[in-house]
């Protein structure tokens, strides 16, 4: 871990408060975190310095409906370097309506242990034309 900077300043991204965290490496090689307003800040900072994780969101074309796209995200964060490999997997998707919110479109994507899930409900047919307030359950 000799490539670690002595001090890393980073912004906690767990909530919109965005605490300014200062991570220092002590003589024993341990990490010291300051500036966190809640207890979630410490593990976040350690992970952010050693192995940052991110969620990702995109949308994919969908067949069998007037809605062109279904939005997707991951069920949980993955190591940051997995973003582009996972995007390439998502790009192969051509799901067919109906799709319900939360439906798993790719399980355990690239062995990361997280799923690619739909983030909205897409009905079959011309669902954009009716006066349905939402895409109620198919």
């Amino acid at each position, binding site marked *: 871990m000799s490539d670690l900077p002595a001090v890393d300043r*980073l*912004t*906690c*991204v767990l*909530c*919109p408060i*965005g605490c*300014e965290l200062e991570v220092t490496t002590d003589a024993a090689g341990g990490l010291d975190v300051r500036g966190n307003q809640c207890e979630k800040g410490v593990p976040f900072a350690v992970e952010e310095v050693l192995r*940052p994780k*991110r*969620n*990702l*969101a*995109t*949308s994919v*074309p969908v067949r069998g409906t007037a809605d*062109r*796209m279904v*939005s*997707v*995200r991951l069920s949980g964060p993955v190591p*940051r370097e997995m*973003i582009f490999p996972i*995007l390439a997997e998502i790009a192969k998707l051509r799901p067919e309506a109906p799709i319900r*919110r939360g439906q798993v479109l790719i399980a355990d994507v690239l062995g990361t242990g997280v799923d690619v899930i739909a*983030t*909205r*409900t897409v009905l079959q047919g011309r669902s*954009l*034309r009716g*006066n*349905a*307030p*939402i*895409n*109620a359950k198919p």
Partner: protein
Amino acid sequence: MVESPETRDVVVIGGGPAGLAAALGARRAGAGSVLVIEREPRLGGILNQCVHDGFGLFLYKETISGPEYAERLAEDVVRERIEVETGAMVLDLAPDRVLRINSRAGYRLIKAGAVVLAMGCRERTRDMVGIPGTRPAGVLTAGSAQHMVNLQNLRVGNEAVILGSGDIGLIMARRLVFEGVKVKGVFEILPWANGLERNVRQCLMDFGIPLVLRSTVVDIRGRDRVESVVVAGVDDGLTPIPGTERVIPCDTLLLSVGLIPENELSKRAGVEISPLTGGAVVDETLMTSVPGVFSCGNVLHIHDVADWASFEGFAAGENAARFAAGRTGAGRSARVSAGPDVRYALPQTVSLGASGVAWSFRVTRPLRDVRIAVKGRSSGKVYARKKYGRILPSELQKIEVRKAVAEDLEVGVDE
């Protein structure tokens, strides 16, 4: 011609995060007939195109995407059997709360016991910030690009420059990278980023996209399509500095240069608009200067987090239901103004004697280790005081006053 209007207890204009919450708030506070009018074919407003996660942390205690947040709120609206009219447009709102609506079923005239304004906001355009140069294709607002990419499966270009560091611009920088577009930089005229810090880190720093502060676009070049933009540094007066110009080849310029509350209807109804927020002047019940007309969400003032727009919506809806039921306390009120380093404080008026009122405010510049105080204008008495390690202009803040208000107030840095 005599028109006899339909009647509703509460009519909510706009079905986004604020409007849906307002409808729910009104229903839960006892309003019998609640109608939500939405211009788009689907409820949810801008949330439908915000596919990124980070929504719902305060309302649902978990982080979800915009479409999920919208669907969950909309499902609650359906569950509460609230009447919804999508694909419908309010043509006019009169001061006596009569709405003229162009709906799928044709023209409708509705008299509302109370109205909640929740129309959201629009993006500033190239014309509004006055960028010189040619008029080629490829110049678009960040939100338009978001709609094209996320909802229409369209590619906006190959090489993009982003002007302005608002949240939508930051989110779109990352979104374009995901789509294989090269993002050459985000240029911000102010000395600080306009968007949330987490977006600067997750959307720019993660992908090595430069954020260039104190800089702006001074020229757009290209005949049919953008071929390049010219950026330059600015001085303290925000004027471009000659000699600092730099040509950046690109085919797309995204603008993320601010949002403006969409208050055309409010103005038709005679609602007093604040020049500081671009939204209505409201009291502590979120009622505008027109009795029975309430306002919430981005049409009232620009929010950085959807959850806060929804919380404001719940409150506006509850208060609208009370007004419709005739439970109103019309008393004398005090004015509330923005003090040192505070751009605006909302509500701008408050009933004398009211207590437990929370003010939303934004600061004019980044501040460190300051105290914000709510003080009496004439007495100098401190009604509330709160310490902040750091406040950014991009963050909407709250300060609560527990004491009963007895005079005009000022919200500002406590010096």
